[in-house]
């Protein structure tokens, strides 16, 4: 039987999901897709993390090239369909490609609305819709200056926050008096504005754009009231319009969107429509949850089961700006019979409001603490009568029936039909059933089978809690393959390296069936580390699998020069060291000398060719590499302690120096930073370090698992010891346990979260024999690691890194 031909116009999120559903049940179609964008299907809602730098484009691809191949799909990239011939049943693209169809799906999404003010077509004016827009914004951010974002809705604010994180000055212009007025009430809008202003974003509400000025590109923007704002980039995020052009030209019924019935069929029975371009029952949509619902329905009608119909439901809104928590769903304007319950906590900056009508929840706005959003939404959907809990409703689910304030208890309390993943409309029951029926143990598997948390990701925590609840210890916490070259996760790889005695990168790739010949820039450094850590003295470090910084023992800078940071044990230095640093800075014309956040000095802008002589001079003055570039020991910060301080209880400086002398040179899964503080006043900031020591009168408290980078978290107590020797042994053991079981790039706090703080205490603190065994293994491995890499290179090692192979120009040659 010849297959039917299915043609799809547009390759966005909606049709991508539709095809997944279709392939689950049917292989009756030959599929051809036309996409105006020159790329595969990616997660458009994750463009904001790409803009802010929290994700890369690779991270957000939904269907890679292989998927299209596997399903025999012809994908025409960069081919916009301009004509549908309903008589001949063909579509034709701008580039002249014609494809016949039996069934056609129009999924052209939306067009961003551009305010037609003077200057709107100047270079430097962008919309926010696709990857090209993000690339344009990043290019502008590179040059710096001020970005003006027009529109204080979801997209505009995500763009503003992203551009700010990329270092631009940012102004948001919003026509209405408060931000996100369609999703937030004025109180929450005000809190949001304050939060964004605190991040340095300039927000002007009630601002109406009159014109954009500039000669060859944007230079300034003019408001109605005459205000002029300098700008090098203008982003318009003022709304979207369903993209109906092709449908209209083909004579289909079009209203605001392409009109479809509850089975997503247009006025032509062989033509379906899904996504933002579709209008069902007078409504068009701009969030993925209902679009995925459309995808499911259309698939069921294409494959002939026809068992689904589209029904409207409320979709909650969340803003994907890291550190801002807001949640809103349903109605919140003033209306007849509407009652409000409001709770504010000015100190915490939280706000919540639940809107009731006839004793039923019809809307909720949460700002600051949004954990109860799913619970309110569940009540909204079920239309449950809440008169019983009127008094405590506003405090959230944990206060109902005396439930413990514990995230697992909270998910345990949810009803089976409580929605967990708003984007994909996945309920608690769906997830639990999939976990038990299919034996899923990892987040990746749950995502693959249920799609829960696979879109915007804000419900990942809930899904994980649900897995923990359903699986207990059987939950595998290291689900994903470590990179595209293998399906094995880091945990499996580490285990198999030991179990099979694998001692080289090619051996691992061969034995563990890597799918690429030589791995990639993600797995190779990880494997190299695992081998260094597991086979001390036996494995020869593979320089070609190390990131450049660890190959040349300096940090690469954006212009290709390097920075050099000599070690200053415990943050102590001497006049001689300082003189040597000053001398090299002069001698090699080093443009910047900076005191780092790690209590030492950074020489920035050293030319690669000068690295060796710079090190030679520093070595002569007794200084070695500070490893400011390494996944390994960085610094041990100290405070002055009993040496000088009137509160000091122990010799914190001396202990810090001892620790740094013991630990330097060691490689670890990620960077490792320590601090020793002389009393609980904590001037060395020990309680936010990977490992910290707090000196007290009666001894030393050892703490660990702190973080003060991308994530901020205080340390957890490991235990208290009486002597410096015990401190050193315990920290050696802790470091070694982390080195042996950590996943590459996993900081100590993530490692401890994964394997458990209690467990770690059992192994390396309470069990004295085990502690000693770990510390001994660490000391053994240090005998191979404590060789100054600078001195080695000054003596001639890896010299090819630092010298060009040939200089082809006579004049240049003379100069070199």
């Amino acid at each position: 039987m010849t297959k039917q031909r299915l043609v799809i116009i547009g390759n966005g999120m909606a049709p991508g999901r539709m095809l997944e559903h279709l392939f689950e049940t049917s292989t009756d179609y030959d599929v051809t897709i036309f996409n105006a964008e020159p790329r595969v299907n990616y997660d458009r809602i994750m463009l904001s993390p790409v803009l802010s730098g929290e994700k890369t484009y690779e991270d957000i691809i939904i269907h890679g090239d292989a998927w299209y191949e596997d399903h025999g799909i012809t994908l025409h990239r960069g081919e916009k369909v301009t004509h549908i011939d309903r008589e001949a049943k063909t579509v034709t693209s701008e580039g002249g490609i014609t494809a016949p169809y039996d069934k056609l799906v129009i999924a052209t999404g939306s067009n961003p609305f551009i305010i037609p003010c003077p200057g709107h077509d100047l270079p430097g004016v962008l919309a926010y819709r696709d990857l090209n827009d993000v690339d344009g914004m990043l290019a502008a951010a590179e040059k710096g200056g001020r970005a003006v974002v027009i529109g204080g809705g979801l997209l505009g604010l995500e763009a503003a926050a992203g551009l700010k994180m990329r270092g631009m000055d940012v102004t948001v212009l919003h026509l209405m008096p408060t931000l996100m007025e369609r999703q937030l009430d004025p109180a929450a809008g005000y809190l949001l504005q304050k939060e964004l202003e605190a991040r340095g974003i300039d927000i002007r509400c009630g601002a109406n754009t009159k014109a954009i000025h500039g000669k060859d590109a944007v230079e300034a923007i003019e408001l109605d009231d005459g205000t002029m704002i300098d700008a090098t980039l203008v982003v318009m995020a003022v709304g979207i319009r369903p993209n109906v052009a092709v449908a209209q030209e083909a004579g289909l019924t079009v209203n605001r969107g392409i009109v479809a019935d509850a089975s997503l069929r247009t006025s032509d029975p062989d033509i379906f429509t899904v996504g933002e371009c579709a209008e069902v029952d007078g409504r068009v949509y701009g969030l993925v949850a209902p679009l995925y619902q459309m995808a499911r329905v259309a698939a069921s009608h294409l494959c002939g089961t026809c068992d689904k119909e589209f029904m409207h439901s409320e979709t909650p809104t969340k803003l994907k700006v890291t550190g801002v928590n807001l949640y809103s769903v349903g109605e919140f304007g003033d209306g007849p019979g509407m009652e409000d319950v409001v709770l504010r906590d000015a100190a915490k900056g939280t706000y919540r409001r639940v809107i009731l009508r006839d004793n039923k929840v019809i809307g909720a706005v949460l700002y600051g603490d949004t954990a109860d959003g799913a619970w309110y939404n569940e009540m909204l959907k079920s239309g449950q009568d809440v008169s019983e809990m009127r008094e405590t409703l506003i405090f959230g689910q944990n206060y109902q029936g005396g439930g413990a304030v514990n995230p697992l208890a909270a998910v345990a309390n949810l009803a089976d039909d409580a929605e967990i993943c708003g984007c994909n409309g996945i309920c608690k029951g769906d997830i639990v059933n999939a976990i038990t029926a299919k034996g899923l143990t990892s987040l990746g598997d749950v995502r693959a089978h249920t799609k829960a948390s696979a879109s915007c990701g804000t419900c990942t925590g809930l899904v994980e809690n649900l897995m923990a609840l359903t699986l207990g210890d059987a939950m595998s916490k290291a689900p994903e393959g470590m990179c595209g070259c293998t399906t094995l996760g880091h945990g499996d790889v580490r285990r198999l390296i030991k179990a099979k005695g694998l001692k080289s990168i090619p051996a691992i790739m061969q034995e563990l069936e890597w799918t690429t010949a030589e791995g990639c820039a993600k797995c190779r450094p990880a494997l190299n580390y695992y081998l260094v850590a597991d086979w001390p003295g036996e494995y020869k470090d593979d320089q070609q699998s190390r990131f450049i910084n660890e190959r040349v023992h300096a940090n690469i800078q954006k212009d290709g020069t390097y920075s050099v940071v000599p070690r200053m044990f415990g943050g102590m230095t001497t006049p001689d060291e300082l003189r040597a640093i000053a001398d090299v800075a002069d001698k090699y014309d080093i443009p910047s000398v900076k005191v780092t956040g790690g209590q030492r000095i950074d020489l920035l802008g050293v030319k690669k060719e000068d690295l060796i002589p710079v090190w030679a001079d520093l070595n002569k003055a007794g200084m070695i590499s500070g490893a400011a570039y390494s996944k390994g020991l960085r610094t041990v910060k100290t405070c002055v302690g009993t040496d000088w301080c009137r509160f000091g209880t122990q010799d914190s400086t001396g202990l810090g120096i001892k620790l740094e002398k013991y630990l330097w040179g060691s490689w670890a899964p990620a960077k490792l930073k320590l601090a020793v503080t002389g009393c609980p006043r904590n001037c060395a900031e020990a309680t936010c370090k990977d490992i910290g020591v707090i000196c007290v009168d009666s001894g030393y408290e050892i703490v660990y698992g702190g973080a003060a980078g991308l994530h901020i978290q205080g340390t957890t107590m490991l235990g208290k010891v009486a002597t410096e020797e015990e401190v050193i042994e315990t920290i050696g053991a802790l470091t070694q346990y982390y080195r042996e079981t950590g996943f590459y790039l996993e900081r100590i706090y993530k490692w401890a979260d994964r394997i458990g703080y209690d467990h770690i205490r059992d192994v390396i603190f309470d069990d004295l024999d085990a502690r000693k065994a770990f510390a001994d293994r660490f000391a053994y491995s240090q005998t191979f690691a404590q060789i100054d890499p600078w001195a080695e290179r000054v003596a001639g090692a890896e010299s090819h890194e630092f010298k060009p192979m040939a200089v082809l120009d006579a004049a240049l040659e003379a100069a070199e």
Partner: protein
Amino acid sequence: MNVALAETDLTWRHVGTIDDIPRQGARCVKNAEMTIAVFRTSDDRVFALEDKCPHKAGPLSNGIVHGGCVTCPLHNWVISLEDGTAQGADEGATASFPVRLEGRDIYLNLSA
């Protein structure tokens, strides 16, 4: 004759031997206009690209070499050694130059 000879001399320049470059590594060659990165793959093929990532001019000679590509050290673009084009979703290309391997000697043609 003379002219032709001079031309060959100028177009194919000897820059070193394959043993000067580590496997899965690179070395630089400089001339008056630019720096060229000369790569050696694990199976001893040699390629030459301008040492300038199409993204933001990162020094490709410092990247990790894998499967016929190099990953730029600055922002992880993956560049084909064969023709200098960016792989995957990224778009752009850096100049690539013909390489001739005679025995272990490497010749570059920078005028192409």
